[in-house]
């Protein structure tokens, strides 16, 4: 079993038998955002679970996606619960909707991922720059030689629809 990874005071444990996250995080370490794609109905899913939530098929393949998406919702944590986050408050958590497979198989469904919004150098983005509708791309935060976190950073693209943030 690989050594647990220390990150912001947390111990991330990804044992060999973690058949959901181990490969996903190892692929992220190769700086590739890969999702599981059902071999029967061809729909991708996240998190990397063991059956297709739409057709219950057990067989799947890894499929690379662009990592491009739009901020669907966000929050700004002012009071950190985890001690390792206290030095970065207020920090943004975003829910990113990926460009692939939006509105499928039903109009309200999409591939969405929780992450921090970070600057290109990996530090936390200024909370004032976060808004629903802003465009982002995946960046990879290497934590060990077999594990990276998928984070997102702002792009220069215009926002999708109106960019909205909570009034001050």
């Amino acid at each position, binding site marked *: 079993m690989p050594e647990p990874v220390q990150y912001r005071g947390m111990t991330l444990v990804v044992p060999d038998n973690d058949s959901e996250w181990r490969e996903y995080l190892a692929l992220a370490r190769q700086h590739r955002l890969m999702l599981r794609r059902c071999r029967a109905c061809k729909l991708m899913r996240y998190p990397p679970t063991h059956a297709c*939530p739409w057709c219950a098929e057990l067989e799947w393949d890894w499929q690379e996606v662009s990592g491009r998406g739009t901020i669907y919702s966000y929050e700004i*944590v002012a009071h950190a619960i985890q001690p390792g986050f206290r030095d970065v408050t207020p920090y943004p*958590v975003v829910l990113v909707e990926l460009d692939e497979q939006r509105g499928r198989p039903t109009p309200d469904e999409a591939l969405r991922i929780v992450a921090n919004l970070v600057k290109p150098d990996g530090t936390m983005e200024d909370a004032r720059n976060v808004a629903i509708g802003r465009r982002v791309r995946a960046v990879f935060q290497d934590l060990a030689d077999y594990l990276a976190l998928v984070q997102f950073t702002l792009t220069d693209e215009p926002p999708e629809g109106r960019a909205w943030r909570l009034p001050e």
Partner: protein
Amino acid sequence: MSAQSLRDKYCIVGVGETEYSKNSGRTTRAMAVEAIHRALGDAGLRATDVDGMLSYQNNDSTPANWVAPDLGIRLNFFMDVVGGGSSTEALIGLAMGAIEAGMCRTVAIFRSMNGYTDLRIGGTGPRATAPVRGQDLAQVPFGMRSAGQNFALTFMRHMYEYGTTSEQVAHVKVAHSKHASQNPKALLKDRVTVQDVVGSRWIVKPLHLLDCCLETDNATCLIVAPAERARDLRQRPVYIMGVAGRVSKPRTDFHWAHGPITRVAGYYAREIVFGQAGITPDDVDVTGSYDAFTFTTMLQLEEYGFCKKGEGGHYVSSGIIELGGRRPNNTSGGHLCEGYTHGMSMVIENVRQLRGTVDDYCPRAAEGHHSYDYAPGRCRQVKDAEITMNLGWAMPPTGSALIMRR
């Protein structure tokens, strides 16, 4: 299938709780025993009349088969489930099922926790530094661990989609603080204003400090028995008309995948519980919508049809949910002001509302004499409350519901 076959066949016959505090100074076992003892006294039951026991917990409590023997109770059925909010209503349904199956006759349901002095409900302390593995890897490494952090994305999206404002939602805290000012048990009895709420410090945007409930040490108990038994007991029977739970959204493991994320589990529980009860939201006199946060109360009232989806901000700020309004919510002050009980206290309060014996400051409240004067430090009894509804929340994708009548 007869969806209404159990309507009015079961009752809540006894309720009880310990003091709500931030320093219980004793074990969850001791508190559970006291809460059950009080509920037995309330019902006019002897300890040995109880032969079924259910509890819920998150590895922060004492199981039923340790608590029951302390009171000399031998159990024919017991179960301790892992779960938090929304377990209350679900376990009431399970208690009815256990009795219906002939496994036992009278069931005590309890929740006991040192939610302030031991395992902090807000997530600080040992929970914040626990190893992160499995499904937690999807959120926790990004600083998203506490309940407020887990729900805030839903709340923010609601503000974006529907124009809901912080000021509108703050009215939930304002209303519940008014109710708590009539409740001798409440931890926070001071009334607050909208400005107090939106002026309090940010915890996780869009939640201010006063949008969040109180971590509390306490135990609570409800006793379920068949209606024919209830009619011989001490209190006016409170009949269970319908129950649903724990109902989930699709993809409850990662509910962000299935939109709209502003839709919560009540959307799916609604038809079950109203179908059983044979009523509509318009028939409900009092609601108990889980207020872990101001927003959770609003989201559920929308989803169960007390207003249109998206109009929850208007509904909760219109005066409807306050004592004296059309349909008061959480007349005890709820989790925001009375104390946090993982949902139990909201059912207890509604039982007392239906009996007409809410424990406010009216001198003869226990006999059902109330002034209906909702000035501070007076009355919180709703006049002639006939039907109540509890809307139980665990997370956006998990919820339960209960409709009771007098």
